[in-house]
């Protein structure tokens, strides 16, 4: 029977003072006892809104039941039937806006800690791998996936499970996309990412790095010369935006993408054991208040900055970062300058950053985004002394592939236009999903889009619908029975 406890089981995490100086993971994860204890809180609703709240439709009540019964292998199978990247999503999904938001318990108490349990079960599976042999694709139609971020990985995994030979093309030297270059080690350890990618390889997915579709190989060559039947574009939203204020090209001003890529992909925190450096001074301002901004400012502290500041023209109410990340940042000593609009980066005679000139703002009527519009307060100019400025004000889809591919239509923000739910672009049998379509969004929305596109590709090629999550679980159970 479900057990009535009003609060979530607390996620053990490392001491803020200690963790803010290294790149090891912040959260320690549940122990087995925590997991069963928390899963017992699920009341197994008839109408499980949590499942609808999940972009990949994880059968959450069944998942909870398996954990509560102590059947971790079963729980892992249920989880993986719907989500090919559970160890990642359990760490980076905004569950508070999705499954946990609509959890019936949340009406009166705290919701079930679905995210923490997802992370726990995926980690349990990693520690106790089952010894299922690698599978081989059996269908004739080859499928190419462009980009190895969350959308591409999930799409590839789903298609591989349906029997298609899948090749992922990645432009960088290591797969994972934003999971590799964007999300820091302290939130998503790279060995977790490597493990999830290895599982895809076990399904027969081939990953080719250092190939940029649109440059090394044109999109049409994938069809004409390399014999692919269908394509999925998951090239993300990798193009950083700048503010266009004076001083933005001074030495010591970075886009969050550059700042984080040097740290995460190139491991600049190990310089000079590795060759890629990153200059981080005593005071670092990060402009913006999304998850990427939190990642950047917390990374700055770990790179040795004495002070890390968030500078945001709106207030904490309009901040787009997850509450968990915001709290972690506060605990680690990040300073928040709300209603502060940067108007100029100041530099010395050698061209290095010395300060950030800002204006105080107040909130007015809601703007087109529905959030209160920030309005400058006249005469409120002031200067924050600063050594580095990191711009984290958003990214847009990378136009590289579109520029070199005839017939691929985009919207005015550069996102690929696709038909709803299926993900087919303006080109026949060219599908797309994730940030390349929506602009910068979340890992799980990209995963969901990858999954939907895989189903649409399968339907397109075979005329069949892919098995439901329930059928997947049964299929896996019968496979393990054999």
């Amino acid at each position, binding site marked *: 029977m479900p057990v009535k406890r009003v609060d979530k089981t607390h996620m053990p995490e490392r001491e803020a003072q200690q963790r803010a100086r290294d790149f090891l993971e912040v959260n320690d994860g549940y122990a087995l006892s925590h997991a069963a204890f928390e899963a017992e809180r699920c009341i197994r609703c008839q109408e499980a809104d949590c499942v609808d709240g999940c972009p990949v439709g994880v059968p959450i009540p069944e998942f909870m039941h398996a954990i509560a019964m102590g059947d971790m292998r079963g729980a892992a199978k249920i989880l993986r039937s719907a989500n090919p990247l559970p160890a990642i999503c359990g760490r980076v999904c905004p569950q508070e806006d999705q499954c946990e938001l609509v959890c019936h318990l949340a009406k009166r108490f705290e919701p079930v800690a679905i995210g923490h349990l997802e992370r726990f079960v995926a980690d349990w599976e990693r520690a106790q791998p089952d010894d299922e042999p690698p599978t081989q694709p059996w269908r004739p139609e080859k499928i190419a996936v462009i980009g190895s971020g969350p959308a591409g990985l999930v799409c590839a995994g789903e298609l591989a499970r349906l029997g298609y030979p899948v090749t992922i093309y990645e*432009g*960088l*030297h290591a797969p994972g996309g934003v999971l590799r*270059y964007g999300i820091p080690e302290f939130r998503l350890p790279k060995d977790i990412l490597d493990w999830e990618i290895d599982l895809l390889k076990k399904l027969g997915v081939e990953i080719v*790095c*250092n*190939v*940029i579709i649109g*440059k*090394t*190989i*044109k999109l049409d060559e994938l069809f004409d010369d390399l014999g692919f039947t269908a394509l999925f574009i998951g090239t993300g939203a*990798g*193009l*950083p935006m*700048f503010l*266009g204020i004076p001083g*933005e*090209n001074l*030495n*010591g001003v*970075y*886009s969050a*993408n*550059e700042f984080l*890529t*040097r740290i995460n*992909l*190139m*491991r600049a925190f*190990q*310089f*000079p*054991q*590795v*060759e*890629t*450096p990153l*200059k981080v001074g005593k005071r670092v301002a990060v402009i913006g208040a999304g998850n990427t901004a939190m990642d950047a400012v917390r990374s700055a502290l770990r790179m040795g900055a004495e002070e890390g500041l968030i500078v945001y023209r709106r207030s904490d109410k309009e901040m787009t970062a997850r509450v968990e990340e915001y709290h972690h940042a506060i605990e680690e000593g990040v300073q928040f300058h709300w209603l502060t609009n940067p108007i100029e980066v100041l530099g010395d005679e*050698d*061209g290095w950053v010395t300060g950030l000139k800002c204006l105080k703002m107040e909130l007015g009527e809601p703007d087109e985004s529905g959030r209160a519009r920030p309005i400058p307060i006249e005469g409120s100019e002031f200067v924050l002394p600063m050594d580095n400025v990191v711009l984290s004000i958003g990214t847009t889809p*990378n*136009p*590289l592939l579109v520029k070199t591919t005839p017939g691929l239509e985009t919207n005015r923000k550069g996102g690929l236009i696709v038909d709803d739910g299926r993900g087919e672009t303006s080109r026949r049998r060219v599908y797309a999903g994730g940030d390349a379509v929506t602009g910068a969004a979340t890992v799980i929305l990209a995963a969901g889009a990858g999954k939907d596109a895989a189903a649409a590709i399968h339907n397109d090629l075979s005329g069949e619908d892919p098995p439901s999550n329930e059928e997947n679980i049964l299929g896996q159970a019968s496979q393990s029975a054999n």
Partner: protein
Amino acid sequence: MPKILEKRQLTPITQLFRIDAPMIAAAAQPGQFIIIRVRDGGERIPLTIADYDRDAGTVTIVVQEVGATTRQLGAHEPGEEILDMVGPLGEPADIPSGGHVIGIGGGFGAAALLCLMRELTNRGDNTTVILGARNQELLILVDELRAACRNLELCTDDGSVGFKGFVTQRLEQLIEGDGPGKPDHVIAIGPPVMMRAVAELTRPHEIDTHVSMDPLMVDGTGMCGGCRVSVGGEVKFACVDGPIFDGHAVDFNEAVRRSKMYVKEEEIAACRAKEGGYV
């Protein structure tokens, strides 16, 4: 992984590598570049494509052993492989056809003129290369460049061969009508100071001038913005908008300043590489 087929020492610190890279060779066009990484933990560095052979499936690069990666690459021998190599990146050179084009190469940047000038010559342009170095020993790819253009002009600071003086001094003479004569278009590839001097020289004559920028870069696909260059007051990314820009519009002061951002760290890493610290 791309295998090194040929290695040639061009000067005591300059080396040419011909690399087996059929996919890149098939797609490469003059003016574009590649990014390489030579070991796990290594940096990603951009290198201009000096030449390519689509039939043989090879790409040629020329490097100067100055940094951590180029020193490690310099120790590679034919038969060995390069860990990571991606490209071609950037936009191809776009020089209007039908006129007299002068290509100016300084230092190892001259190598980047090779495939470009050959293509311009083949399409019927009148082509001149002004190749400069401190002395005769340091001039690179003289025979190859001679074959790639109609007129080759050599310059050395000490006068050991050709014109005694800088490439810009010889260019000035040509603009005034000497030798192969005044150009309709100029493309300069080399150190920023040289490219700036060329651009300043051609500006009063309103000669269309292209320069190939080589800023700090990480991914090379427009993702990090580390390579931003101010061109005519607009911010451009050298990796996707360039690397070739209008020489009269580039803010060279900013470019030089930005290129020095990691001088100290580059020295530390280069020393470490020299001492065999990266294996």
